[in-house]
């Protein structure tokens, strides 16, 4: 039997394994596996940061603490200073929290058997909503409500163009919450789907080889190599998506609080 034919039967099971399912409880009070992994990721983030902050010294001696400090410096230099500019220091705790939490969630999902919390649209919606409310709050605090609303349209436009540009900018600002959420979710979900399909293909071709088809055994080695290549790409994507989410939040904060 051709192993590719049985793939069509297996893919719905794979898709079903990504659905939210209750770990315990049901209906009005319960916990899905994504929420469980989100809490685990919160605890890991807390443990990493607390453990590193206890070992901080003026002269770096501890490798673990230097690693976390390097991550914080990365957020400070590459995201805070270059994207927000003046007055970036007060936003650093928020950005660093976002970065470390998303990074750890993405990497936890890469461990076989674990689920990534960011592979669920509900959790990325929540993260995007936090970022959205945060930059609007700081925009209103920097310019006042009227000033912030006025600042959507850039100054120096002809008078007739102002309402049109203002409306378009308002629309694109509201869309930011959608794109932030869907970008993270889409990348994580699609990546895990591709990894799952390559793993399924590998197991099917090995099963076919055991039943007496040596060519399928040779092909299964190629699928394993593909799986490793995709896994390497997913490690890059996991880091890049945490970076993109954080730097876009920083850019939006910078746009909301800057003077022009």
């Amino acid at each position, binding site marked *: 039997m051709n192993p590719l034919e049985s793939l069509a039967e297996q893919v719905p099971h794979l898709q079903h394994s990504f659905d939210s399912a209750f770990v315990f409880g049901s209906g009005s009070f319960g916990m899905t596996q994504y929420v469980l992994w989100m809490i685990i990721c919160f605890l890991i983030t807390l443990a990493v940061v607390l453990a590193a902050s206890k070992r901080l010294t003026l002269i770096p001696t501890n490798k673990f603490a230097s690693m976390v400090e390097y991550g914080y410096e990365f957020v400070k230099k*590459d995201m805070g200073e*270059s*994207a927000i500019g003046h007055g970036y220091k007060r936003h650093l705790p928020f950005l660093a929290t976002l970065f470390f939490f998303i990074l750890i969630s993405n990497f936890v999902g890469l461990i076989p058997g674990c689920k990534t919390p960011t592979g669920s649209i509900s959790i990325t919606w929540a993260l995007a909503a936090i970022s959205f409310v945060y930059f609007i709050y700081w925009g209103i605090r920097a310019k006042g409500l009227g000033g912030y609303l006025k600042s959507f349209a850039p100054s120096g436009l002809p008078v007739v163009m102002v309402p049109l540009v203002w409306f378009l900018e308002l629309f694109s600002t509201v*869309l930011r919450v*959608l*794109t932030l959420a*869907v*970008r993270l979710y*889409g990348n994580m979900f699609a990546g895990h789907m591709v990894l799952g399909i390559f793993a399924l293909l590998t197991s099917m071709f090995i099963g076919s080889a055991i039943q007496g088809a040596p060519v399928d055994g040779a092909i299964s080695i190629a699928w394993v190599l593909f799986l490793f290549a995709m896994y390497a790409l997913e490690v890059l994507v996991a880091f890049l998506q945490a*970076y*993109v989410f954080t*730097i*876009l939040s920083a*850019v939006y904060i910078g746009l909301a609080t800057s003077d022009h």
Partner: protein
Amino acid sequence: MDGTLVIDALKLVGYGLSTIGPGLGIGIACYGCCVATARQPELQGRLFTNFIIGAALAEALGLIGFVLTFIV
């Protein structure tokens, strides 16, 4: 032919078409980033940051197409 099947197929075709624009946009942004880095390698950090921001903004259009396949 079944009407809902045609609509489902058309949704996928429409999403495929909607990824052309962001694909071109990210390609052009990457080209610009590579050329600028070749000319002034010392600016690589800033250029890469700007490239990521531009690519993310172009990608937003593809993501809107992705969401619309669920909504419509």
